[in-house]
């Protein structure tokens, strides 16, 4: 029991650390590599849950995480990044230091929130959920602080890693495998979108006023 917890905790914790590492990286290729590491860690974590909870079909999710997100997508994105010549530094809206401090605050917030709320749940669930929420919030932070289509995809995929971690941590949750497949389709579409439309930079921000001006919809 304790050993089982320790391994789950280790893998989830390393995933969180890679989340922070992604905030730190300032080159797209480094971000992609870090993401691949996180996906492989996720795959290990899910496989461990499959063993610990005795739910063999979770291995499908683990395999998907490893194959698609750990290997294929990072490789494909890296090739495209090189082809489009955007492997240089990524413009960041806020600096690394601020992003780190925000990230730490978000991590603390999610731990406090989840641990307080899930008092009755079992060990795996509480631990997994706390880590997962932190990973999700860090990924959101990354999506906000980067102004580049590829890093945003990576941020979204990282967010999704957190979700899969949470879903597999919730003991006996049905449809997890199906949802992970659905997510994979979604991500494949994301990557496809970048490939087809060659979206280089993401258009500044989600601030609609800025976009209104592009559209001739300004005051």
């Amino acid at each position, binding site marked *: 029991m*304790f*050993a089982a*917890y*320790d*391994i789950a*905790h*280790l893998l989830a*914790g*390393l995933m*969180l*650390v890679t989340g*922070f590492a992604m905030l*730190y990286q300032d080159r797209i290729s480094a971000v992609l590599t870090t993401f691949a590491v996180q996906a492989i860690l996720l795959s290990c974590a899910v496989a461990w849950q499959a063993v610990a909870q005795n739910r063999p079909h979770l291995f499908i999710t683990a395999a998907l995480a490893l194959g698609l997100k750990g290997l294929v997508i990072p490789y494909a994105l890296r090739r495209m990044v090189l082809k489009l010549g955007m492997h240089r530094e990524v413009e960041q809206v806020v600096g*690394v*230091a601020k992003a*780190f401090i925000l*990230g*730490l605050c978000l*991590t*603390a917030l999610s*731990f406090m929130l989840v*641990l307080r709320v899930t008092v009755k749940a079992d*060990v795996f669930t*509480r*631990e997994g959920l*706390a*880590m997962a929420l932190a990973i999700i919030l860090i990924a959101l932070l990354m999506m906000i602080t980067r102004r580049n289509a590829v890093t945003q995809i990576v941020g979204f995929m990282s967010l999704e890693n957190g979700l899969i971690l949470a879903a597999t941590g919730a003991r006996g949750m049905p449809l997890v495998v199906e949802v992970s497949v659905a997510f994979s389709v979604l991500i494949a579409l994301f990557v496809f979108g970048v490939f087809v439309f060659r979206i280089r930079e993401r258009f500044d921000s989600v601030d609609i006023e800025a976009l209104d001006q592009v559209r001739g919809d300004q005051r």
Partner: protein
Amino acid sequence: MRDTIILLAGQFAQMMLVLLIAPLITGIIRRVKARFMRRKGAPVWQPYVDLSKLLRKESVIAENASWLFRSAPYAVFAFAWVAAALVPSFAAGLMFNWAADVVALVALLGAGRAILALAGMDIGTSFGGIGSSREMMIATLAEPALLLVFLTLALMAGSTRLPEIAGHFISTPPTVRISLALALVAFVIVALAENARIPVDNPATHLELTMVHEAMVLEYSGRHLAMIEFAAQLKIVTYLALIACLFVPWGMAPANAGPFAWFAGLLAWASKLCLGAVLLGAWEVSIAKMRVFRLPDFLGIAFVFAFLAILMAFVTRAVL
């Protein structure tokens, strides 16, 4: 009564031991670096020779130096010695173990650093000033991380006193704890910064643009310089001993084990320290020094890791 005497003797032995071993550790590091660079290198006892040479030499003092400049080396040495002597080495439960508190340790190290920085500015040369300001910048970033690392361990062990923390980790079955791993990484980064090692600072250069620690002590010579160098060597021993005590405490003689168990502990401790010195030497030759402006990012990593470590330790504590 007899026990008290033994414990006092043990404590005294430890105080002398750190003094004895400190130049040797520095010698090993230099030797290892030299061998990795395909140089023959000076023998490992060279630092002893250097120290005695410096002690015999005349100390040249600038005209406008105040009493602070003259007394600082002794104060720095004293703080370093006390800090090094407090960290449990071969045995727990020695005479002054009650004082080996992590917060006190941080305060001792910080005090030495502050005095040195003041002395660096005392003469009024630009080198001293720039060295002090950089040293303080590094300190403001490294010290919070150091405290967080200590608090993480204290949270896990339930005590802020070093012997009890070590005892806790010896007595519990070894497990994979990510908090410990993160704390170790953070601690190593802090240790590199505090001891002015590569990639934060290069102890072997006097290049104007990059030096930090060396710039601060540039005006010192003779016995003053000997004191400061000795203090720096003691500081390395302190940090290596801290790693040995907190992260790999196995082999340390438990409290009330008696003098005979001490010898086994001593052997284990000395080998841990030597291994640490070899690793540090290998690390220093394998990477390059960082630009000063990258340092906040590098030390920021230590802070983030230490913070994550304490948060995760908190999760583990709350969940289990």
